[in-house]
């Protein structure tokens, strides 16, 4: 329909059908209202979910990134680092983190935070996932009732981050050995816990905190003994080579072991307050009955003691009762000698039953009574003697033994520490014997013997050349002559030789001659008269009978 210049009147045009529906477009306002409601509800939810903001101070913020580094509790994200800054004195790094609302209850005054980084130890590998994902902040909730929003971060993760049930113990030792945090704790080769802390106390000793996990803490008793199970215990005993170790990890990373100690130890261990134990150097030491207080003795040896070390055992009648603690060189003014002064620590308790008997007799009441008792032992021949512990190593130990044959020795019971008389070691006597033997060998006239032997040999040589020059050619001639003789003899004796044949003939001749002679003799025997009358003819057929009859009637 084209528009004309003159507008048509309203009557000519059709009128639209009127409909009244003006409320529908107004529904569009639902949209912005709904959007606003959703937005506001989100804001409220966010605000409600917003947990506390905490600040943790670390010495180093290595690897911590704003907005990326997470705070995790039991490997579950509970927060995120929102800011990293320096403290006012630039000494620490302040890490601010927004925690989720449900994590607020984890924040106690003693909650611990630490940065989890990959750690590779012999005993364990941890935090390996942080190699790729970056570090995160670990959290270990505390037990305090107060809550806090500012925390001091730990530089090293606590050994137990998720607080399993169990018992924490303190072990005291002179030295911790090669223990690392996280080193295993064994009970009969079974890992039951871990070392969680090591401290050097102001007095120089070490305190090792260990944690024994829940079902196994029941094995802890007052008499329990702990010892350092690091390394390999190789023992060559009468029953052969014995290698003992708790585990390969303990060999490398160190470890502790515990077991029930001897029951007599209860009284000694019971005075340890609470959860504190002594850490022994090794199992043998831990299991030994308590040593009691050491007593010191001193010995002067008039001989060199090469091979005697500090720590060398002191044996009393074959029982190890102590060790050498110091060696010194003295000087005797009178005879201008340098004796070796050995100080040793002995534990009288190690004498066991003997000690109890002695104690019952009152010999151990005081230093004086003990010294007096030692004096009587010395008068009975108690002497200290260095002895060779092993011929291979040349190591020495000191034996306290009764040597009644030894010369008398003075004993001053008032000197402290007690000074025991000494005798020289058996190895020196052995040495002297060997020396004498060597001297004897030295004294032999070896050169003379050698010279004599030389002339004798020369003589022999001459004799032999003589033999060679003169005797041997003659002998050869003789032998060839003999050979010829034997040849001719051989020919002569041959069966076909004329001599042999003639001999055979002669023999047969002589055999027949002898037969004739025998017949003649027989005849003569029967007819002795024939010698006079000559031979008579015989009746040939009955000759034997006739002969008989003639014999019967002589």
């Amino acid at each position, binding site marked *: 329909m084209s528009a004309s210049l003159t507008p048509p009147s309203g009557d000519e045009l059709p009128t*639209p059908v009127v409909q009244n529906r003006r409320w529908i477009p107004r529904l*569009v306002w639902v949209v*912005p209202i*709904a959007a606003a409601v959703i937005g506001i509800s989100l804001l409220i939810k966010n605000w409600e979910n917003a947990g506390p903001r905490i600040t943790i101070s670390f010495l180093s913020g290595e690897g911590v990134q704003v907005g990326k580094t997470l705070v995790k509790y039991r490997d579950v994200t509970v927060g995120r680092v929102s800011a990293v800054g320096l403290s006012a004195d630039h000494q620490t790094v302040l890490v601010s983190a927004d925690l989720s609302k449900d994590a607020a209850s984890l924040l106690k005054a003693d909650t611990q935070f630490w940065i989890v980084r990959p750690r590779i130890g012999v005993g364990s590998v941890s935090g390996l996932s942080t190699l790729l994902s970056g570090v995160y902040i670990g959290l270990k909730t505390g037990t305090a009732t107060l809550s806090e929003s500012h925390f001091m971060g730990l530089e090293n993760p606590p050994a137990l981050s998720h607080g399993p049930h169990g018992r924490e113990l303190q072990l005291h030792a002179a030295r911790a050995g090669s223990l690392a945090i996280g080193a295993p704790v064994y009970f009969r080769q079974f890992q039951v816990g871990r070392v969680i802390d090591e401290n050097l106390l102001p007095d120089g000793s070490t305190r090792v905190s260990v944690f024994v996990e829940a079902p196994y803490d029941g094995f802890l008793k007052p008499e329990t003994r702990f010892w350092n199970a690091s390394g390999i215990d190789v023992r060559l005993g009468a029953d052969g080579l014995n290698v003992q170790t708790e585990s390969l990890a303990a060999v490398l990373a160190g470890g502790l072991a515990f077991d029930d100690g001897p029951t007599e130890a209860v009284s000694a261990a019971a005075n340890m307050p609470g959860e504190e134990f002594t850490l022994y150097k090794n199992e043998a030491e831990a299991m030994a009955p308590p040593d009691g207080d050491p007593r010191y003795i001193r010995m002067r040896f008039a001989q060199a003691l090469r091979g005697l070390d500090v720590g060398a055992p002191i044996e009393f009648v074959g029982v190890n009762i102590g060790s050498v603690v110091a060696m010194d060189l003295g000087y005797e003014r009178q005879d201008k000698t340098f004796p070796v002064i050995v100080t040793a620590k002995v534990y009288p308790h190690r004498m066991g039953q003997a000690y109890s008997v002695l104690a019952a007799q009152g010999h151990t009441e005081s230093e004086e009574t003990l010294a007096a008792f030692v004096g009587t032992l010395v008068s009975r021949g108690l002497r200290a003697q260095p002895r060779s512990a092993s011929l291979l190593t040349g190591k020495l130990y000191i034996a306290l033994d009764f040597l009644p044959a030894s010369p008398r020795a003075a004993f001053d019971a008032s000197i402290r520490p007690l000074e025991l008389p000494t005798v020289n070691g058996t190895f020196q006597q052995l040495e002297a014997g060997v020396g004498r033997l060597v001297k004897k060998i030295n004294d032999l006239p070896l050169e003379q013997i050698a010279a004599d032997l030389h002339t004798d040999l020369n003589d022999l040589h001459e004799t032999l050349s003589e033999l060679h020059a003169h005797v041997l050619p003659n002998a050869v001639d003789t032998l060839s002559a003999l050979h010829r003789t034997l040849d001719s003899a051989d020919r002569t004796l041959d069966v076909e030789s004329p001599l042999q044949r003639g001999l055979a003939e002669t023999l047969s001749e002589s055999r027949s001659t002898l037969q004739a002679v025998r017949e003649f003799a027989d005849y003569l025997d029967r007819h002795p008269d024939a010698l006079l009358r000559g031979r008579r003819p015989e009746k040939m057929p009955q000759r034997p009978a006739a002969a008989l009859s003639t014999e019967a009637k002589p």
Partner: protein
Amino acid sequence: MTVLRQSLELGLTLCRTCGLAVSRASLESDGRCPRCQSRIEHRTPFSTEMTLAWLIAGIVLYIPANLLPVMHTSGLLGEADSTILGGIFEFWRSGDWDIALLIFIASVAVPFTKFIAIGLLLVTVRNKSRWQQHQRTALYRIVEFIGYWSMLDVIVVALTSALMQFQVLGTAEPRAGIAFFCGVVVVTMLSALSFDPRLIWDQRV
């Protein structure tokens, strides 16, 4: 200058479907074309009101769209929630300024342009202003045209989420923010559609 007369002055209204010119018997009321039964409106009814409503909805939605993370990525290198602005900064810092610029235009510049442009149109129409009518009409066309380009962000997130599913190595998941952003785009497009450009030319009498 020739005076161009409007149908209003002539008492006429065109059916937009079949082109039937009907008399403007009732100017404010709606009606149906007697020939084709299509709706006949002299001006889109409640155009400014609806445009304003959609615009407000868009602005409201734009706030959570920017505050909430649009995507959550997790992989070997950790996991992260990224917002639109955070992603732009990330790209800018890592040197991909072109991508940063693209995302900035698509997800910040375009929505803001739309908010301002539609707002301007609404204000001028309400005042029946005669100021820059041609330019304002052009502006309206531009707003209509650029509307869907904002969907670029939504498509990026959708594609990334669909493609990046390598379990341990890395996964990307959409987060609530992108839904809000999608809402912003849709609502502003509806706002632009609700606007009747003929209003620009309705001058004060």
